[in-house]
């Protein structure tokens, strides 16, 4: 009979907590998860850091713009004219006088050939 009693307890139905039981407990308890807190603190830090970086970036861009504008513009104006004359010089360099003479010779040869043809 002792064995019967042991069997009765060992074979007895054993309940397992349903998942919603923990959900209800977690909802009703006034406790908060550590992970959420860490996320809150992390997000506050992140936002602060992002705001500082953004402000610093804006200041840097503003300061850079203010410093660069007056110094650059005269340089650009001054350099515009020589650049144009250099371009013109480069264009004239492309026309080789010797080549022009050779082309003129070719033209003369063509004229002579045409005249010979007409004579025939």
């Amino acid at each position: 009979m002792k064995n019967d009693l042991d069997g009765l307890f060992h074979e007895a139905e054993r309940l397992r907590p349903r998942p919603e039981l923990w959900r209800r407990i977690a909802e009703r308890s006034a406790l908060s998860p550590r992970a959420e807190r860490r996320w809150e603190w992390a997000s506050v830090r992140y936002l602060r850091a992002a705001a500082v970086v953004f402000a610093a970036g804006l200041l840097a861009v503003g300061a850079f713009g203010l410093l660069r504008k007056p110094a650059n513009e005269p340089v650009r104006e001054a350099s515009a004219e020589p650049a144009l004359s250099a371009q013109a010089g480069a264009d004239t360099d492309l026309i080789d006088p010797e080549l022009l003479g050779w082309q003129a010779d070719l033209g003369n040869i063509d004229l002579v050939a045409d005249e010979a043809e007409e004579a025939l």
Partner: protein
Amino acid sequence: MRPWIGAEMKSLEELRAGRLEGLQWIYETFAERLLNQCYRILLSREQAEDVVQDLFVRLPEIIGEFRGESALGTWLYRVAHNMCLNRLQQAKNRAKLEWENAEELAPRARGGSVELTDLLAKALAGLDAETRSLLWLKEGEGIPLKELSAILKLPEGTLKSRLSRARDKVKEYLEQEAKVEKRS
């Protein structure tokens, strides 16, 4: 030293600091055992779940009463045991019943208003709630007498004699059941 003592201490610290993780560790470690203890006392899954839920929701408040004189599990068994007995007492008061729990629950069990899905539940229904708790913790959970004495706040000698009487009653029930089966 229990292997989970470090985790137990850590979870207690977390719980006292108001963190849910501490409560979750205690729940994952003890909820099933507490649910079964409550089920064997109350003989109803729904009521057992209610008590376990109530216990864990209130745990952050009442954990201050745990002084570490016993294992956390022992203390939790005691809290669950008391909460179940209180619930039965309240139900009894509400219904203005003067009978003992066993007399009250056994006919209800047979009538089907209380969930008695297994033979053990039916056998335990013939015992009073305190004895059901004692017998389940000893035979179902294998808790030694010394720890049972701490849970139920009763001397070991008293527990031994109560256990002996409870086992005899259950055996008697099983014999009757066997006879009924043979006849049918």
